[in-house]
């Protein structure tokens, strides 16, 4: 872990000093930060870690896919507390967590155990009081705002308990929102047909191909959550963060959603971190960790 910390610091400072413009795989200059633009891991390779490469990480190898490693996502000593009416309520008291690439991890915990907070910290929606979040070995919780936004847009996909689709937009438009956010007006406009095709493909994959033009209030809960998942996946993120994705659904639909997530994990080469209070849902994940008292208590597979 120490190694991890030292190398990542070296990396981020080097890339920022030189101002090196990374190129996306298709050769187009990309305005994305190396952290965002680089595919950190080849998700199909699970052949162990490579200490040598990790140590020799420098600017030149930023563009190149790194060898697969133990952890895609690591959380170290995460502390977070909220202030309410001048009383400090500690929520996380030093959480350590490692997520391997391609893994489907479920974090279980009671309501108020801080699992959503943990997910928000991983997804860069909030700042930890102490501790660090690493993505592929690079510290990401302290990067500049612009890069945080890009990471949220491209690297993480988010699914919420209450779906959170924008009521003014149709299903298709809702799914395209992350694409629009991540690209300038013109670059979106030039490639809009391509993005549309990808969105429709995705909707068909999750079984909503017939609901393109419907507004969110015309969809059922299961359909809404499917649409939300499609939205989370449109930018081909590496990691899908799901916050109680089945919390508002009946068990049957919930199971369907979970199966969908599993399928997607395989087809889209995703890593999934899901928080839930429902053990039966969590049982469908690869690995379960339990969060209570602000710490990861036990791990079960």
């Amino acid at each position, binding site marked *: 872990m120490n190694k991890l910390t030292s190398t990542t610091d070296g990396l981020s400072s080097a890339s920022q000093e030189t101002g090196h413009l990374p190129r996306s795989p298709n050769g187009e200059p990309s305005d994305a930060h190396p952290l965002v633009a680089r595919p950190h891991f080849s998700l199909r390779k699970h052949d162990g870690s490579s200490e040598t490469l990790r140590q020799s990480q420098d600017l030149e190898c930023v563009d190149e896919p790194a060898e697969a490693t133990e952890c895609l996502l690591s959380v170290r000593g995460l502390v977070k507390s909220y202030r309410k009416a001048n009383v400090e309520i500690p929520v996380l008291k030093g959480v350590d967590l490692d997520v391997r690439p391609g893994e489907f991890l479920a974090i279980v915990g009671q309501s108020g155990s801080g699992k959503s907070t943990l997910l928000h910290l991983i997804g860069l*929606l909030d700042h930890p009081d102490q501790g660090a979040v690493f993505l592929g070995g690079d510290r990401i919780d302290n990067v500049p705002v612009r890069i945080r936004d890009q990471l949220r847009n491209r690297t993480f996909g988010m699914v919420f308990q209450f779906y959170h689709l924008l009521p*003014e937009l149709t299903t298709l438009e809702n799914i395209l929102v992350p694409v*629009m956010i991540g690209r300038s007006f013109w670059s979106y406009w030039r490639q809009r047909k391509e993005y549309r095709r990808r969105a429709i493909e995705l909707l068909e994959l999750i079984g909503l191909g017939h609901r393109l033009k419907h507004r969110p209030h015309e969809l059922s809960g299961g359909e809404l959550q499917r649409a939300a998942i499609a939205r989370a996946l449109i930018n081909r993120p590496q990691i899908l963060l799901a916050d109680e994705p089945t919390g508002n659904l009946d068990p049957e639909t919930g199971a369907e959603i979970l199966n969908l997530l599993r399928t997607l994990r395989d087809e889209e080469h995703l890593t999934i971190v899901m928080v839930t209070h429902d053990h039966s849902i969590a049982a469908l994940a690869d690995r379960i960790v339990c969060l209570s008292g602000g710490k990861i208590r036990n791990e079960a597979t």
Partner: protein
Amino acid sequence: MYRWLLCWRYLKTRYIALASIISVTLGVATMIVVNSVMLGFTHEMQNRLHGILSDLIFQSRSLEGFPDPDWHMEQIRRVAGDAIEAMTPTVVVPGMLNYQVGDAWMTRPVQIIGVDERTQAQVSDFSKYLQHPENRKNLSFNLREGGYDVIDHQADGPSLPRDEMALAGWEHRRRAARLRKMIEQVQQEPEQQSPSQGAEASPFTNPFERAQTNEPVAAFDPETSQYTGAILGIGLASFRRNGQDHFLLLPGDDVKLTLPTVGTPPRIVSDTFTVVDFYESKMSEYDANFVFVPIRVLQQLRGMIDPSTGKGYVNAISIKLKPGADMNEVRDRLRNAFAPQYYAIDTWRDSQGPLLAAVNMETAILNVLLFLIICVAGFGILAIFFMIVVEKTRDIGILKALGASAAGVMSIFLGYGLLLGVVGAGAGLTLGLLFVRHINEIADLLGRITGHRVFDPDIYYFYKIPTIVDPWTVGWIMAGAMLIAVLASVLPALRAARLHPVEALRYE
């Protein structure tokens, strides 16, 4: 992209926000209407003032005037000949007008202006405002046989006919003379004709001038001869009721003019003139004040002719400049060349400065007030935007969770404000332009509904409300309205941008 999409969708779904920009719309429409009408009025007024006054006025500071206008004109031409198109000498003197209506004598204070009939038409629109078509082409102080306009030739719309004018001319004069003779015969009271006692009394009277002014020395028969011609401002001879002009006098009638002579102290002289035409500039101030007579006659009457040279004194020289000449520059050149203690040299703008400034001031104040209305509308937008931001808190959280930057979220609401401003100002533009286009119909309709004339031609001397739409003014109004809409959305947009994503997502 998502910003514009969301702006557009918000615009289409939040009707309450549209309600908040109705005041912007109304403000913009009112500003356009007010500016168009004020500009129309100003333009019309300036045109008329300019038409009446000529470009530059070279005036003596004294009513006594200065001698030898030809020499002065030569000097003026030497100083600024390159810019001068035409000049005419005039004599201006305050006086009294007397005429008989029925048995009563009417007395009116007037400004008597002696004009040179050959050159007056070259420097101003003077002849355009006359009522006989021949006089408009070729000014003459001789009474015409008939054929005076029975319809206002300057009216750019329907106007009520002036039937009484059909009688004007020699026909009217002969009839009036016959009638008077009959009355005299019936009363058996032979009344003495009184041809120009005042002129006779003047020490400088030149008997040879009489023939020139068509005034017989011997027996005067009003049926066949006239006194010196005079052109009266139409306001002196008529009054208007409900758009219909009623005439107290017609061309062919005789009037008396009384005025002071030169010299200290001045004496009062008086003479009889025959009205030969009316002058209607549509500026009531002038139409109710001006009496034009031949300059030579006025000079004699006032004793302004130098007996040794036979040259008359004049008060002023009106100068018309060539098109494109810089009025102020020529004025300054002349001011430098002539002794300022004797000569006042002004452009027509200078001499009407206070009036033009008052109109401009009025327009400016109206604009400020109306712009404040739009500003008030801005606060409406602010309040409603705050509500929308609160309502959209969760959506903002989602957008941020999906990677939208604070600036992006902010620009949604700024863009929304701009879009509302565009819609509001656009609707205001349409409404304002439609209103301006149909302003006369609307004024008529309002008049019919309220029973009170909104635009009373008795007051304004225009039959229609003059309007001019200035694209620049309209552009500024639109830009101002849009700017206010954007400014009003800055605070709510900032609030939205500052929302913490986690708190926003938790917001119920």
